[in-house]
Structures are given as C-alpha cells and as structure tokens.
C-alpha cells in the first residue's frame, strides 16, 4: 500500500458512490438492531430491487445515529431523519425521496439534541458502512496514518498529541501525550499497544458504539500510536458481551490486512504492525490496566501494585501503552488537523469533546458528543430534553460505580475532569444517568456497592471485606434497621477503602456513598431516624409497583 494506492481506493469508491443519486441509511448498530432495524433494511433492499432502481438508489447499513430511544432510525439523502421506522414503511420512505417527507415518521433534527453536539469521534458514525474499509477510506480514512508514516518522525507524532492536550478518555484523564512519550522512551525488546475496550461500567455504551459504527478509526489510532511509541504488536481487549463489535472488529482487521494497512512494512516503510483481539470474560476489574494485562496473558484478572507502571513493565514484562477506545478514536483527527486545532476545543484543562451515553429518566436517551465544558443543565434539559412525565430532577450520576451522584446545585457546573472531581464524582468513561424523584439515593448507593462487592477481585482485604461490610450497612439502612452508629461506621469505611485499597476499584468504590452522603444526607436520616423512604423505594416488596 502506497499513498497513491490509498488515493486510488478513495477515488474509485467516491466515483462509485456518485452514481447513486439517492441514498437511504439505516442504523444497524446494536441499539436499533434490537428494535428490528435489520428487517427495515431488508425491506428497503427488496423494495429497491422490486422497483429496479438499484443503480441509482443505495440502501446502506450505517453505525449509530445517536438517538437510540427513537430507533430504528433511517436517514435519507434529501436530509430527512426518520424515527421508529418499521419494515412496512420502506415503500413510503422510497416514495418520499423525490417528494415531501413522510410526516408521521419525521424526527426533527433542529432540536438541541442534534444542534448542540460537536462530532469528532462520532463524525463517521451513522454516515459510513462499518463493514467496508473503502467507505472509511473515501471519507479520508487512513490519511492520518500515511501522513504520520511518510511526513513525520515518531517524535513529532508524540509532540502533536501532547500539543492537542488530549487526556485519557477511560476516566482518569491522564495526559495521553505524556503516556506516549513515556512508552516511547522506555527500553524493551518489544513494545505493545493495548486498546482497552472492556467497557464494564453499567450505563456506559460509548465504546461499543464507536467500535460498531467506525472500527477502522480505532485501528488507525492504534497504528499511529504503535508508530509513535515503537510498538509492533497490539491487542484489543474487548468484552465478550459485545458480539457485534467483535464481529465488526474482526472484519475490519481482515480488510486492513488485505489492503496492506496492517502487516509488514506498511506503506513501504520499515514499520510493521499486527493487531489481535482478546475477548474479556466479564470482570469489571479488568478495566484496571494491570488487571487487564494479566487477563490478556491468560490469567485471572487481578491488579498488581504500581510502579512499575505498564509503560515500563507491562504485557509479558515489556513496555506497554494502554489507551481507551475513545482516546484512540481521537488520534486520527488530531494528526490530520494538527494538535493546535484540537486544543482550541473544550476548556483550559480539558480539551476536545467527550462522548456521553445519556440514559435514565430523560426524554432523549442515546449517544451524544459534546465539547468539554458544557454545563450539566444543558446536558439534561436541552440535549436530554428534560425529565419525562413532569417529574422533578433529583441527580445525575457520572462515572459508574466509581463516580458519584451530582445534585441540583451542581447543574450549572461545567463538565470537565476537574469540576467533576471537585464535586465528588469523576468523568469516568462517559456514562451519564439521570435520576428523578422516584429514585432513592440510598438504594442507588446500595446498588453500586452491590456491584463493587461482586466485582471485587478479592486480592486485597480492604476492598474484599470493606465492600461487603458497606453493602451490609446500606442494606440495613434500606430495611430501616440501621442505627446512627452504623452510619458512622459507614463513613469510616469510606475513608478506609479510599486510602488502603490496592487498585482503583476499591479506592473509588466508596464514591457513590460519599457523594450521596454529602448531597442527600436527609434521605439517609429519614431512613434511620424516621424509618421511612422519602422516594418510596426501600422497605417494600418490589413487583407490583410498575
């Protein structure tokens, strides 16, 4: 593969696509697929074949369009987005391509949900066919790789990423450029790159959508990273629970190998790179980098003390670069447009955009990409469309089991790494769950503690025993049998776990409790002193309430 050959592929693909005067894109990402979008696509295909318009009307399966709650989504070349499309609507949509839109299915796109977004990571999602490398190349894909390989030294690539101000999107927000530079300076017989696609946070599905909608973008980011740090082998550690993402990644790797973008001597340079998949097997702790490495090595996923950091001694004892899916997805645009362009987006310390999985009690649920620094109020009320059924907002939860619940007072806070940390939560990988007055905060804290208790790997005692004891106290509070003394013990345990656990799981496990104790102390008091649950969740049998 040479730069000219890449241009050739892009040219041929564009030429082919220009024959189609009409285009219908059907979302075939997991969200819409579970609303039968495949049958919508099949129906459209059949209808096009029946009408004999195959040569000028293209029906394409594309990645996520964002508004998952209104799926299946279909967009057309005359700029209309349709929601909740059924197979029987195929003919009507094809008719509308030359006339006025099918009004009963139209999903307005001039609303804040679409207008307030800024797409960098998701720019191709919902536009290209994730199963065809040609489509990715036609939109300028892999040009960043070629640029890095032919015009830049590996040093310059690292500098460009440093200049962009990009920070790790897995949650902790470590500067990506710094990590790359450490790995590139480390000495080893071999170096590895690992893509962390073990998206274990309940309530987060950004990485899955990126992998399902635009897998080549992640591969390109990894290739550039490999070139920058001097690695020749890479693994993508992806959850076995995401079969569609695995299928599309396998396919993407095969295609990239076929055209010579993966393998030996890429683009006639001395750079060789291989990418392999490793399937996770359902352990939340494997999101922690040393546990993830153990899992890739075929062992139980238990963390080990750091240092040495994986950048020095990682996979098989060699220097290893570990980044999250979304971090890698940001790389190609940074190299293409320059680090300075990227650093102009976002806030002073948090650059760029962040993809959030907006879910819970809001009107619009789905995937959104917004510039850093947007306020929580905008997220919930403008993009999210507010709380349904006229209920009252109570809290927004970010960062999954390691994060916290932010109350009404935090609504005007900007969303960036520092502000969230100051408010007692974390950015996390991007799950954002909105809760209304029907949620009990004690119950929510118990839910997350149950999660951490089950997911604790058992290696260190503070986490193994501490999460169990905290869960026991929270259960007692929920059952209205707890005392003031229990509450003091709970607070003490929060502090203990935070400071003595071995890895991030245990250290951050108290966060949901700490943040709810801080902002919703009256709810805890009501459970303990008045023996009642203000939200009416605890202490009664579940079942007939819905």
């Amino acid at each position, binding site marked *: 593969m040479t730069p000219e050959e890449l241009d050739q592929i892009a040219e041929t693909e564009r030429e082919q696509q220009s024959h189609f005067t009409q285009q219908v894109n059907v979302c075939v990402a997991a*969200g819409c697929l579970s609303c039968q979008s495949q049958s919508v696509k099949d129906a459209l295909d059949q209808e096009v074949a029946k009408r004999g318009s195959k040569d000028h009307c293209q029906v394409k399966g594309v990645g996520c369009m964002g508004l998952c709650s209104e799926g299946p989504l279909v967009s057309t070349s005359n700029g209309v987005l349709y929601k909740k499309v059924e197979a029987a609507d195929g003919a009507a949509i094809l008719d509308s391509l030359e006339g006025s839109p099918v009004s009963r299915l139209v999903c307005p796109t001039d609303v804040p949900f679409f207008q307030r977004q800024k797409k960098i990571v998701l720019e191709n999602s919902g536009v290209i066919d994730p199963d065809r490398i040609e489509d990715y190349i036609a939109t300028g894909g892999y040009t960043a790789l070629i640029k890095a390989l032919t015009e830049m030294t590996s040093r310059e690539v690292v500098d460009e990423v440093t200049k962009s101000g990009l920070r790790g999107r897995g949650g902790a927000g470590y500067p990506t450029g710094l990590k790359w530079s450490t790995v590139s300076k480390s000495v080893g017989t071999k170096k590895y790159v690992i893509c962390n696609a073990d998206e274990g946070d309940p309530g987060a599905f950004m990485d899955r959508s990126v992998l399902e909608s635009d897998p080549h973008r992640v591969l390109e980011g990894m290739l550039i990273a490999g070139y920058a740090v001097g690695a020749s082998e890479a693994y993508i550690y992806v959850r076995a629970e995401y079969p569609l993402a695995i299928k599309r990644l396998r396919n993407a790797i095969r295609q990239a190998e076929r055209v010579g973008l993966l393998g030996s001597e890429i683009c006639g340079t001395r750079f060789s790179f291989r990418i392999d998949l490793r399937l996770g*097997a359902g352990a939340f702790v494997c999101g922690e980098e040393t546990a993830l490495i153990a899992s890739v090595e075929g062992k139980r996923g238990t963390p080990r003390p750091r240092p040495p950091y994986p950048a020095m001694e990682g996979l098989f004892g060699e220097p290893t670069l570990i980044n999250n899916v979304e971090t890698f997805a940001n790389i190609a645009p940074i190299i293409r447009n320059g680090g300075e362009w990227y650093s102009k987006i976002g806030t002073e310390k948090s650059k760029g955009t962040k993809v959030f999985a907006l879910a819970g009690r809001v009107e619009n*649920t789905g995937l959104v990409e917004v510039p850093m620094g947007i306020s929580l109020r905008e997220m919930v009320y403008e993009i999210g469309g507010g709380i349904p059924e006229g209920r009252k907002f109570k809290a927004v939860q970010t960062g999954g089991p390691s994060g916290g619940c932010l109350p009404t007072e935090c609504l005007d806070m900007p969303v960036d790494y520092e502000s969230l940390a100051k408010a007692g939560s974390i950015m996390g990988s991007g799950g954002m769950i909105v809760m209304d007055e029907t949620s009990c905060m004690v119950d929510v804290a118990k839910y997350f503690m149950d999660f951490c208790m089950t997911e604790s790997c058992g290696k260190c005692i503070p986490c193994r025993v501490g999460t169990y004891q905290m869960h026991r106290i929270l259960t007692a509070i929920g059952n209205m049998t707890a005392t003031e003394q229990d509450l003091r013990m709970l607070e003490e345990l929060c502090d203990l776990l935070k400071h003595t656990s071995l890895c991030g799981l245990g250290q951050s496990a108290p966060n949901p409790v700490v943040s709810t104790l801080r902002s919703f102390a009256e709810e805890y008091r009501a459970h303990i002193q008045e023996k009642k649950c203000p939200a009416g969740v605890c202490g009664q049998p579940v079942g007939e309430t819905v």
Partner: protein
Amino acid sequence: MPSYVAKPTPPNQDKRWKLVDATIRRQGGQARGLIETLHTVQEAFGYLDEQALRYVAMSLRVPLSRAYGVATFYHFFTLKPAGEHTCVICMGTACYIKGAPQLLDAVQRDLGITPGETTPDKKVSLLTARCLGSCGLAPAVVYDQEVAGKVGPAGIREHLKKWTTQHDA
C-alpha cells in the same frame, strides 16, 4: 522449545474438540491462550465441564487449579449447562432505575428460580447481566440472544409463557 510431554488426546470422538484444538494451535499451545481456549470450549459446548477443563489444562500445560481459577473468576464462563432457552435481564444502572428489579421479581415468582439457575424441566435459564450497553432501551432483556428493549413485567411474563408451554400444548 521441544516438548517432552505428549499432547493429550481429546476426551472423546466429538468433532467439536477439533475447534478447541485449532484454538490451542493458534495460541501456540502456550499458557497465555487459556482464556481464548476456554472461550472456544464454551462456544462449542455451551459450558465448561470438568473433562473439558482437564483437557485444556493438560494441552496448555497449566495446573488444573489455574484453569479452574480462571473459569470461575470470570462471570462469562459457566460450569453448568444452560436450559433450552435463556433469559438475561440487564441490571445496568439505567435498567435498574427504570424497573429491572420488577422484571426480575416477576420472573423469579413465575419460574421459582433465582439468577444463575435453570428450571427443573431444563426449559429456561435465568441470568442477569451487568450492562448490555443498550441503556437507551432500558430496561432491556435478552431472550435467546435477541435483545428486547423497554420491557415491562407483563411483556416478560408473556414471553416466558410461550417458552414454558411450548411443548406441553
């Protein structure tokens, strides 16, 4: 490195062992391929039994305790065969606050089993998931690999009824 231990022969004539052997070969017969190999076994046989664990451990030359340790550490692996149908209820945060506990309660009452169990007639297995990543469709349930969104207690009851009465009719 030359190996002085003969490669073990599969426990029986089942053709599916060929798939397992292929994975072992692809991993170079090395211990690092343990998780990948167990994935293949589970995909081919549906679960990991003792004989499979023994075979994998011997083939990769790891102690049986390590194979068992890995198989029990990860939630995805199961040591028991699943029922004819499986129903997975997502207990992710979004599903939880939108009523997944009510779904679970409905199923538990109807079938008389708790998550991880299979009905005595081996028709239905009930499982819970940490998060399916279908939060936009909460609460979500997977019926035999098919994800269904915005499920209510009535909906799940009806679906399970179809399964449990299928052959009795």
